[in-house]
């Protein structure tokens, strides 16, 4: 009888499904923020393990340098070509240097760097941590009296927060160089004029905006990567690792876009930075 009543139980309706899904999402966001705040607390608690930080800095920074420079360079080239073509009909093609410089410094430099690192580093952090979770290595850390947040998350979080602005500086220069090469080589623009225009439009405030954005993106990539790595269950297996890794890359990319909008609103509209 009991079995029969279970069979005839009505499936949850659309509002219930929405409620269940919303509850799940909010619960995940809550757990992610808990991990984020635990990380912030652990950053300031001794012991400070600089060797782990240096290892992550090298892994995240040095190994990503080439791909970030290449991505920045070609983004700058595309901007230069598109900028010149769009501005020429209005006879303001001379502003192409300003267009490239401002776009790359304030927006595309940090954004492209963050996208590259989200795919490369965020996903690799998730894959590494979730594999450790599945193979009980994180449990082993706990049993040996080592805080996994302190040992695994803090170095990755700090390394991403430090290396993203650092790499952004390289990608920004590469972007401006790409724009310069494209515009000077393909169109009738004087190289000295381009560089002079860049110099005129490169403000400390703009660089500061770029670095604030890059640091925030770095934090977001590390936080999402670590959270997705930790959130897998031990029974998840290889499939769980794959799902977590894909999820990490997707969520990081969305987080970067949302964060970019929020930061643009705060920095330009509220704080009035230019």
């Amino acid at each position: 009888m009991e079995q029969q009543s279970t069979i005839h139980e009505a499936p949850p309706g659309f509002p219930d499904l929405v409620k269940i899904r919303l509850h799940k999402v909010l619960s995940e966001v809550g757990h992610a923020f808990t991990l984020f705040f635990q990380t912030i607390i652990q950053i300031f608690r001794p012991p400070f393990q600089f060797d782990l930080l240096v290892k992550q800095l090298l892994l995240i920074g040095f190994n990503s340098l080439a791909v970030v420079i290449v991505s920045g360079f070609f983004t700058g080239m595309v901007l230069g070509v598109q900028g010149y073509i769009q501005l020429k009909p209005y006879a303001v093609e001379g502003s192409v240097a300003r267009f490239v410089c401002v776009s790359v410094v304030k927006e595309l430099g940090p954004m492209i760097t963050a996208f590259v690192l989200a795919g490369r580093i965020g996903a690799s952090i998730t894959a590494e941590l979730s594999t450790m979770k599945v193979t009980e290595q994180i449990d082993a850390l706990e049993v040996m009296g080592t805080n996994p947040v302190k040992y695994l998350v803090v170095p990755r979080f700090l390394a991403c927060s430090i290396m993203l602005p650092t790499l952004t500086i390289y990608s920004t220069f590469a972007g401006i160089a790409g724009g310069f090469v494209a515009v000077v080589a393909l169109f009738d623009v004087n190289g000295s004029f381009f560089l002079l225009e860049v110099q005129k439009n490169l403000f400390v405030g703009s660089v500061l905006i770029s670095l604030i954005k890059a640091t925030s993106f770095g934090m977001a990539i590390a936080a999402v990567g670590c959270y997705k790595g930790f959130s897998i269950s031990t029974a998840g297996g290889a499939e769980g690792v794959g799902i977590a890794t894909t999820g990490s890359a997707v969520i990081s990319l969305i987080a970067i876009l949302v964060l970019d909008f929020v930061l643009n609103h705060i920095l330009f509209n509220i704080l009035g930075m230019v």
Partner: protein
Amino acid sequence: MISIRNVTKNFGGKNVLNGLSLEIPRGETLVIMGRSGCGKSVLLKIITGLMSADSGEIWFDGMEISNLNRKKMNVLRRKVGMLFQSAALFDSMTVAENVAFMLDQHTDLDRREMHKIVDEKLSLVDLADVQDLRPAELSGGMRKRVGLARALAFDPEVIFYDEPTTGLDPVTCTEINQLIGDLHERLQVTSVVVTHDMHSAFSVATRMAMIHEGRQIAYGSPNEIINIDDPILQQFILFGAPDQILNMENPILKEYLGR
């Protein structure tokens, strides 16, 4: 030494531990047996603080530990060593780094002293010349030995073994069982072995407990265990234990075999 009192744990409406009580006396090797999914590994995770119980108490050396904060729990964990089912070696580190991990994290020993302890612990588990290898380069049995050496590195008072012989060939199983017995005799540590491998259980146990449906249904020395008239226990022993262990005079076993 460890006292588990009325512990319950529920996963998604299923009671995995259902008011479990169990005593782990100092210096004994207690084997916790039970069918897959009966809550043995969950119990280990609760004792080691990897998971919290829904209710009940865990007493360790006269201290109630189920509500300890992380800092106090970490101090307590230094008295504990654990061999995980999969060995759980850190695959980004060498064998030596794995064994020295706790020393590196919790002491100020220099490299030479750590190296000496690593060699000593590896020789305890009959391993040599593997210090510079990575876990991926080791066989299943060697990984378990390294896991055991790592568990011994901080001279624990209690060692927990989670399914120590799972996934190993019969020869390696026997070697691991002998190793557990030897270590118990040589180091006089308290050992808790969670297993459903009856050969392993009867090889190493000085005390045994059987868990069924989240409760302890039998407890005693191996000799006492084979004489307990409990059908579930006897069925479990019949299908798993070596023939020479079976007590054919046990009425439950007689009845079961007579059917």
